[in-house]
């Protein structure tokens, strides 16, 4: 696990991207953030980058390649080190089917996208603390 690696954020909503970046700044997060507007752009980056990201935070509903499809592709096609990056889902609308789909893929977390800064800040803070403390996640 590359705990100093970048945090890949896949989010098609510009306002949500700004809010997340404000949260990371307020937490003085030392990991770089890399934002992608859709799953395909993120897939392209992850398959060709030489660095190993620390975390992937992914929206579920996105144009072209949605969050579930992207995670599935990473787990079937990507190098082992990419497969081992914790993949967390964020969504505004959480349907029961979406949650079941996420956990049937052994999700590492499925979070409600909170619109209130303080709530989102606490969630992101707990996420960072959890994966920094984690010794070795393995998806298989």
């Amino acid at each position, binding site marked *: 696990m590359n705990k100093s690696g970048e945090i890949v954020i896949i989010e098609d909503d510009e306002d949500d991207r700004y809010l997340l970046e404000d949260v990371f700044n307020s937490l003085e997060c030392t990991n770089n953030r890399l934002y992608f507007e859709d799953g395909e752009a993120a897939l392209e980056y992850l398959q060709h980058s030489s660095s190993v990201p620390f975390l992937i935070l992914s929206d579920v509903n996105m144009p072209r390649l949605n969050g579930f499809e992207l995670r599935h592709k990473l787990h079937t096609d990507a190098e082992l080190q990419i497969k081992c990056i914790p993949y967390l889902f964020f969504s505004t609308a959480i349907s029961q089917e979406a949650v079941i789909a996420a956990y049937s893929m052994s999700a590492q977390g499925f979070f*409600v996208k909170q619109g209130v800064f303080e709530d989102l800040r606490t969630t992101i803070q*707990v996420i960072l603390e*959890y994966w920094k*403390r*984690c*010794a*070795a*996640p393995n*998806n298989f």
Partner: protein
Amino acid sequence: MNNNGAILVIEDNEDDRFIMEEVLIDLNYPNNRVYFSGGKEAMDYLQNSESNPFIVFSDISLIKLSDLEVKRELRADRVFLSRRIPFILLSDTSNTNIAYDRSPQGSFIKTCSISEFTKTINTVIEYWQRCSPQN
């Protein structure tokens, strides 16, 4: 996920069980705690009880005993994961064989410092309580 469900602890070492219980008492979550000496007992509990546990903490050494035990414990993993119950591994050192770190939810170190271990357990519980769906 059931935030109010029991916290299951799979741990065969009595001292470690004692420390875990002290930590959970200290953290003051209202969840019941149920302790097991192996994955098999925890699985039996899951299959035979009406309860819907919140989370499982399992000592990593319990999945290293023998091939038979490994198969049995891996089945325990899968049983819990298929019920969408987070399965967290705990180990004594960071030198654990990565091949055994079978939980997608990660493994965590039982540090010598009780205060650090308490922080770890607190972080893990907070994380999964924030996960959806809320019960």
